[in-house]
């Protein structure tokens, strides 16, 4: 089915022709999602920013060869997923994720919440982050793309270069594992 080009595909076309303002627009539109995804993948906000920088530079250099066969955002997640998974495959860079507040970095706090609610939210976030870190990398990637980035199973399959049944299995296992971690936390806070 022919899909009309989205605005970001048009921006990529302009980047390929040397338009750096178009690239800045792409960065501004997508940096939050890329940083968020990388943070969930590697558990370290500072490292996630470094990965996000690498990812956007890859996007820039890939522009002359970019083909709009899918939505730009799906393609961007594919680049980001590959870069994060490749990073995690390097043993020297793997290491245990930082524990405590450092791992969660700049989690936004809702000013309207009381201190107990904020503390409870942070405690739950620690449980989730630890459970995420314990997942196999591809399960974590599929789960993050589904639960935090809102991608469809089909788009996740595109990003992971996997089949939809494989994505379904990855998300199922990850969701069950995390639901058990949250349930356990609820029983033993």
């Amino acid at each position, binding site marked *: *089915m*022919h899909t009309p080009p989205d605005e970001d595909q048009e921006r990529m076309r302009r980047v*390929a*022709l*040397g338009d*750096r303002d178009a*690239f800045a627009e792409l*960065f*501004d539109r997508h*940096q939050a999602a890329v*940083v*968020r995804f990388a943070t969930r993948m590697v558990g370290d*906000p500072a490292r996630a*920013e470094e990965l*996000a*920088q690498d990812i*956007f*530079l*890859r996007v*820039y*250099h890939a*522009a*002359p*060869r*970019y*083909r709009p*066969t899918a939505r730009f955002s799906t393609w961007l997640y*594919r680049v980001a997923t*590959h*870069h994060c998974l*490749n990073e995690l495959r390097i043993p020297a860079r793997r290491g245990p994720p930082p524990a405590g507040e450092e791992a*969660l*970095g*700049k*989690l*936004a*706090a809702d000013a309207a919440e009381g201190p107990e609610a904020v503390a409870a*939210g942070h405690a*739950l*976030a620690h449980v*989730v982050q630890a459970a995420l870190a314990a997942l*196999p*990398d591809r399960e974590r990637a599929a789960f993050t793309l*589904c*639960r935090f980035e809102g991608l*469809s*199973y089909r788009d996740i399959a595109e990003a992971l270069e*996997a089949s939809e049944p494989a994505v*379904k*299995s*990855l*998300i*199922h296992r990850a*969701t*069950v594992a*995390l*639901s*058990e971690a*949250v*349930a356990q936390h609820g029983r033993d806070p």
Partner: protein
Amino acid sequence: MTCDERQELVAWRDGALSPARDAEMATHVAGCTACAAEAERLERGLAALASLPEVQPAGPALRARVLAAVAATESPPAWARLAAWLRAGLRPRVLVPALAAAAALGVLVLRPEPAPPAPGEPTAGLEAVGEPAQLEAALVLDELEQLETLGLESPEDAEVVAMLDELEGRP
């Protein structure tokens, strides 16, 4: 149905099943105590995830670093800008008997532009290249471009990645 159906509870909850299968699962969950309990537990877990604090976007320093790195990069070479222009569909009449050979020779030979796609049909991509030799050259370049974009050095890297995925238990 057996309670192996619970393997599809998450996909059912996510609305990722076919309409027929979705209806089957809905009927099953309504009548299976175990699956209904599991569905509730999944829902509570997911509800807790939705209440997590958001990860804040990066500050202005990241933007400055990225744009500075781009500014320090040379503009795309002329051949890359031409390739991007061609891909955008603003085609001169171009013949590419072997894309790499043509680039090496620095010669463009003209051919009639292919007919535009009919409404509703995908934009001609590799199909527009035409002859088998041209298509093969284009496929090789396409694969190399994809490898470079994804950070892999060679097709062998892609095979290693696939093997690692299998070891990790990817189904």
